[in-house]
C-alpha cells in the first residue's frame, strides 16, 4: 500500500527514511498488530477492577467483572467518543463566543467585528431585537445568547439547534428527547451515565450519544457563524494547495490546528514584519501556509495557501524550509516537535490546554496576543538564518484552487442569476436531473488508508455521475491538494449535465470559468455550512432534510470528532458513509442500530464501505432512491 495518493509527497517520505526520521506511517507499522479488543470496542477500562475484555468468539468471558456485556461496553465506549468530539467542537465555539462577548464589551483589543451585517442577520435569526441597538450591544447579546447554549439549566432546546434546522426535524428530535438544552451538560451526562454501575442499556446510551452529538452540532454552528462575525464571512477566493506552496526564498510559517482566533493574529502581524524577513535574506518575505483546519480557516478568509491536510503534516517540516510550526488545538501530532528538532524549525504551542514537550509556548489568545505573535514571527526570521541549505527539498507540485464557498457566498453568487429566489437555479437543476444530488465530504485522513485515495476516487466517480460535491476539513484538503477544486477539474471530471450547470452558473455569476465541481466550505467545524445550505434547500422545497437527495461521506474517518459529526448527521436524517469500521463490531446489536435501526428512528444511518468505488455506487443508489421518493426523474424509477 502506498502512503500518499499524491505522489509529489513521496520524495519527502523517502527523505525521512534516509534521515532515519519516523513518520506516522512508520509508527503505524511498528504498532501492528493492533489489539482486536480495542478495534472491536470490547475492551473496558472504565473502572479498576479490570481492564476487562469480552471474547467475541464465545470461548472466553462474555461479561466484564461487573457483569457488563459486549453491547453495554461497546455502547459506553462509543458514546464517550461522541462526548469527546462534542467537547472539542464545543470549546472551540465557546472560545469564539467569549471573544465576541469581550469585543462587545470593548475589552478585546486585538479583535473586532469584521462582518456586522452577518452579526445582525444572526441576531435576527435567534430572535434578538436589534432596533436602536449599537453593534457592540448586539455583539454582547448574541454572544450571551450563544453562551446560554453552554449553561442553560431550563429544559428549553439550545438556541443554535432550534434556529438552524428544519421545523419538522426539530420536532422529531424533541420528540425523541435528544434535542439538548445545554452542550456542556450533555457531555457531562455522558461521562456520568457511563461511569461504573450507571447506564447499562445500549439503546439508552446511544440515544444519549445522539444528544451529545447534537451538542457537537450546536457548538459547530456557534464556531462557524461567530467566527464569520469576527473574521469575515468567506467569499470565493483563489489560492493554491499542496507542499509546493512552501517557498525556498521565504520565511515559511505554518499555522496548524483548528481555531482561527490564533492564526488570524499571526496573519495580521505578517505585513508589518515583512521587511525584517527580507533584510534577513528571505527575498520573498514571509510566507504563511496552512495545515489542517486552521489552514482551511485562513485559506477561506485570507486566501492563505494550504500546505497539507492531517496525515502529511509532518512532511511540511521535512521540506527543510519551514521556519516555524505554530499550532493551536486538535489534530496536532506530538511527533512534530521531535521532527522539528532535527531541523532548524521552531515549534510554537499557543493554547493553555495544548502544550507539547519540546515546543516553545507563547499564548495568543490573551492580552499579549499581538506581542507574542510578533515574537513568533521574529523567532521564525531568526530560524531562517539557521537553515541548512543541504537539507532542503520542496516538492514542486501545487494545485490551483477556488475556495471560500460559505452558504452566504453561494447565495450571493446565485442571486446574480435570480435575485428573488437565489437557490432556484440549484433546485431547478436538481429537479430536472442535471444535478442528480449532493454529497458532503468531511472527516479526516487515516493511516489505514492511502492518504486521500478514498476521497479522490469516490469524488471522481460521483462527479462522473453528475453529483455535486461539497467538502470540509481534511476532505477539502484532500481535494484541494489533488487538483479537484478548480475549473479544470469541472472540465475533466464532471459528467456532461453537471459540467453544463457549473459552466452556466460560473458564467452567469460573472466569473469567466466554470465553478469548481467540489465546493470548499471550510474547516471541519464548518460542516454547519453544509447543513445551512441543505436546510435552505429543504425549506425552499417544503421538505425535510431526510428527503433531499443528499448524503455525507467520511471515507478516511479517524477522530472522535468525526464520530460525533457522523452521528448528528444521521440525526438530521442524512445517510452517512464511513470508509472504516468504528470500534463497534464487538456488539452486533450496536452495529445493527447504527447501520439499520437508526433509519427507523431518525431517518439517517451509517453505511460502512471500505472500497471507494463501491461506496460511490452505494451513495449514487441512495441518491437515486431519494429522487424517486420525491417523484423527480430517477434512475430507480426508470428501471421499474
Amino acid at each position, binding site marked *: 500500500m502506498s502512503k500518499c495518493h499524491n505522489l509529489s509527497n513521496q520524495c519527502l517520505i523517502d527523505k525521512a527514511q534516509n534521515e532515519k526520521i519516523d513518520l506516522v506511517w512508520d509508527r503505524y507499522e511498528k504498532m501492528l*498488530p*493492533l489489539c482486536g479488543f480495542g478495534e472491536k470496542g470490547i475492551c473496558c477500562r472504565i473502572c479498576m477492577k479490570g481492564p476487562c475484555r469480552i471474547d467475541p468468539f464465545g470461548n472466553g468471558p462474555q461479561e466484564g467483572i461487573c457483569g457488563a456485556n459486549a453491547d453495554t461496553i461497546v455502547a459506553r465506549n462509543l458514546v464517550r467518543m461522541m462526548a469527546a468530539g462534542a467537547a472539542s467542537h464545543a470549546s472551540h465555539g465557546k472560545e469564539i463566543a467569549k471573544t465576541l462577548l469581550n469585543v462587545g464589551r470593548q475589552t478585546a483589543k486585538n479583535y473586532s467585528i469584521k462582518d456586522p451585517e452577518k452579526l445582525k442577520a444572526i441576531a435576527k435569526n435567534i430572535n434578538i431585537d436589534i432596533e436602536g441597538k449599537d453593534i457592540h450591544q448586539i455583539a454582547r447579546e448574541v454572544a450571551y445568547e450563544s453562551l446560554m447554549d453552554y449553561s442553560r439549566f431550563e429544559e428549553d432546546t439550545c438556541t443554535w439547534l432550534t434556529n438552524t434546522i428544519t421545523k419538522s426535524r426539530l420536532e422529531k428530535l424533541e420528540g425523541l428527547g435528544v434535542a439538548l438544552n445545554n452542550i456542556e451538560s450533555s457531555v457531562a451526562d455522558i461521562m456520568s451515565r457511563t461511569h461504573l454501575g450507571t447506564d447499562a442499556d445500549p439503546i439508552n446510551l446511544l440515544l444519549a450519544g445522539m444528544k451529545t452529538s447534537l451538542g457537537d452540532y450546536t457548538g459547530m454552528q456557534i464556531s462557524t457563524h461567530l467566527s464569520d462575525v469576527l473574521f469575515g464571512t468567506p467569499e470565493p477566493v483563489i489560492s493554491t494547495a499542496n507542499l509546493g506552496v512552501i517557498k525556498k526564498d521565504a520565511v515559511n510559517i505554518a499555522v496548524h490546528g483548528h481555531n482561527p482566533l490564533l492564526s488570524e493574529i499571526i496573519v495580521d502581524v505578517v505585513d508589518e514584519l515583512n521587511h525584517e524577513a527580507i533584510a534577513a535574506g528571505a527575498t520573498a518575505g514571509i510566507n504563511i501556509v496552512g495545515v489542517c483546519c486552521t489552514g482551511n480557516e485562513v485559506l477561506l478568509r485570507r486566501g492563505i495557501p494550504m500546505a497539507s491536510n492531517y496525515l502529511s503534516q509532518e512532511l511540511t517540516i521535512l521540506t527543510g524550509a519551514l521556519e516555524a510550526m505554530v499550532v493551536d488545538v486538535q489534530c496536532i501530532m506530538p511527533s512534530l516537535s521531535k521532527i522539528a528538532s532535527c531541523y532548524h524549525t521552531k515549534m510554537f504551542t499557543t493554547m493553555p490546554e495544548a502544550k507539547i514537550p519540546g515546543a516553545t509556548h507563547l499564548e495568543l489568545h490573551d492580552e499579549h496576543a499581538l506581542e507574542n505573535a510578533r515574537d513568533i514571527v521574529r523567532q521564525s526570521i531568526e530560524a531562517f538564518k539557521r537553515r541548512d541549505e543541504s537539507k532542503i527539498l520542496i516538492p514542486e507540485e501545487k494545485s490551483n484552487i477556488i475556495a471560500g464557498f460559505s452558504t452566504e457566498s453561494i447565495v450571493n453568487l446565485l442571486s446574480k442569476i435570480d435575485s428573488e429566489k437565489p437557490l432556484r437555479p440549484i433546485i431547478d437543476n436538481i429537479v430536472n436531473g442535471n444535478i442528480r444530488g449532493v454529497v458532503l465530504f468531511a472527516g479526516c485522513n487515516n493511516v489505514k488508508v492511502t492518504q486521500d485515495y478514498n476521497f479522490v476516487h469516490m469524488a471522481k466517480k460521483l462527479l462522473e455521475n453528475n453529483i455535486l460535491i461539497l467538502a470540509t476539513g481534511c476532505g477539502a484538503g484532500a481535494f484541494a491538494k489533488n487538483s479537484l477544486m478548480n475549473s479544470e477539474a469541472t472540465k475533466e471530471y464532471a459528467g456532461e449535465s453537471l459540467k453544463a450547470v457549473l459552466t452556466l452558473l460560473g458564467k452567469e455569476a460573472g466569473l469567466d470559468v466554470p465553478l469548481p465541481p467540489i465546493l470548499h466550505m471550510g474547516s471541519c467545524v464548518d460542516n454547519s455550512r453544509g447543513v445551512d445550505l441543505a436546510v435552505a434547500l429543504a425549506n425552499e422545497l417544503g421538505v425535510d432534510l431526510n428527503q433531499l437527495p443528499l448524503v455525507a461521506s467520511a471515507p478516511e474517518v479517524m477522530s472522535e470528532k468525526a464520530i460525533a459529526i457522523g452521528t448528528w448527521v444521521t440525526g438530521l436524517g442524512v445517510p452517512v458513509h464511513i470508509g472504516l469500521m468504528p470500534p463497534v463490531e464487538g456488539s452486533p446489536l450496536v452495529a445493527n442500530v447504527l447501520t439499520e435501526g437508526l433509519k427507523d428512528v431518525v431517518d439517517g444511518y451509517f453505511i460502512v464501505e471500505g472500497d471507494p468505488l463501491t461506496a460511490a455506487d452505494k451513495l449514487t443508489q441512495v441518491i437515486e432512491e431519494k429522487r424517486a421518493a420525491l417523484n423527480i426523474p430517477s434512475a430507480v424509477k426508470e428501471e421499474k
Partner: protein
Amino acid sequence: MKVSIESKVKFLATNPDLCLGCRSCELACGAGKAAKYTPEERNSKRPIVPSIIVTQAQGLNKKIPAYCRHCENSFCLQLCPAKAITREHGAVKINDDKCTGCGICEQGCPYGVITMTSYKVNERTKTLANKCDLCLDRQINDRTPLCYTACPTKAITLHS
C-alpha cells in the same frame, strides 16, 4: 500410576481465526522470562524478547501468532555448532551457558521464531539466542505455558 514427564508436556497450537492481536501472549511470555533473569542480567539490562510473536501483514486483516513448533528433526538443534541446543522432555531448548550467539539457529529456523539478543557484561557484548521452551519449568509442575494461560480468546491451544 506414574506418569512420565514426557507424556505430560504439551505442545502449542494456534487458531489464527481466534487471534485478536492483543499480544497478551507476548506480554505473559516476556514477563515470565524477565522474572527468571538473575540480578546480574537485570543490572546489565538483558533484553526481554517474547518467544511468541503476533504478526500482521500490511494490508492483510489477519493476525497470526508465530511460535516454535519444536520440530522433530529441528534444524536449529542440528545446526548449532556449540551443541547448546538440546531436546528436553520433548522440547527443543537452548542452554544459555553454552550459546555463543553465532546466530546459525536463527538462520536455520523455518518459522523465524528464534531471535538474537545482545547486552553488555563487563564491557563485553554477550549475544544469546532466544526461543520458546514450552515453559518446561511450569509444565513439570502441572502448570500450563504462560502464553496459553494469558490468551483471552483461546486462540492458543495445547496438545500432546
